[in-house]
């Protein structure tokens, strides 16, 4: 899939994963890379950018045995942004699906 196209979608994926619970970086990266093929390293610039834009706050929590985990927490602003983005995505994907179906049924 087109790299640039994927980046926009990754934003929605990260936001939606943080909607219900806080997660740490590695967990977020794995959750997404299980389903979508990405270069995992590009997730960290994305996380930093969204944090700087005020959509997340971060905090550290000790884990048993491992290193301290940096958790990301969605802010109110981030939640609003997520809803906007989801709405846009739904409209967009509906339109694409419709075009695909029309294309297939015309064959």
């Amino acid at each position, binding site marked *: 899939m087109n790299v*640039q196209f994927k980046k926009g979608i990754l934003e929605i994926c990260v936001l939606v994963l943080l909607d219900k619970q806080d997660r740490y970086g590695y967990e977020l990266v794995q959750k997404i890379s299980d389903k979508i093929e990405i270069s995992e*390293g590009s997730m960290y610039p994305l996380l930093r950018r969204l944090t*700087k834009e005020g959509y997340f706050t971060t905090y550290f929590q000790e884990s048993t045995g*491992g290193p301290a985990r940096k958790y990301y927490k969605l802010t109110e602003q981030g939640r609003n942004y997520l809803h906007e983005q989801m709405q846009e995505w739904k409209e967009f994907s509906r339109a694409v699906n419709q075009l695909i179906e029309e294309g297939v049924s015309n064959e």
Partner: protein
Amino acid sequence: MNKEQFLKSLDKSLKRLSSDERREIIQDFEEHFAFGLEEGKTEEEIAASLGSPNQIAKELLASHHMEKVEATASTGNIFRAVWAVIGLGFFNLVIVLGPFIALAGVAFAGWATGIAFIVSPLLVLVNAVIYPETFALFDLFLSIMLSGLGLFIAIGMFFATRGLSSGFVRYLQFNVKLVKGGMKHD
């Protein structure tokens, strides 16, 4: 590539950032390696799935420079941001550097004209000192008039430069969005 090589290469590409910011970034990746190793992956496997440190650094630098430009639009900052945006893709060389050079050229020409007009009476006086026999009042009055005109041009250029640079910052932002493949319509 193992962990040490990966982190070293990333750190080296991030020289422009403050040491605090660099430390934070390196820490994020150290954490990533630690969890990966815990899951039984090798350092090489983890580094391979992270991708190129250079590319990661480019993305970090581009958004860093954009923030700086937004905070204070000084010439140096704008210039660095131009380079960062160009770094995102060779494709951008023409659409970013082209307008930048054109705008900088126009601004430079405007200022040069204004300043030359302003100092023209001085030139007439210097001329009069060196070759007193060629001095004509007409030249002096003409140059004083030019000087006034020059002042207006300079004032105009002051606002024009400000407008141009803020317009260009917006153009850069649009470009970063475009390169990053933002799906926003705004």
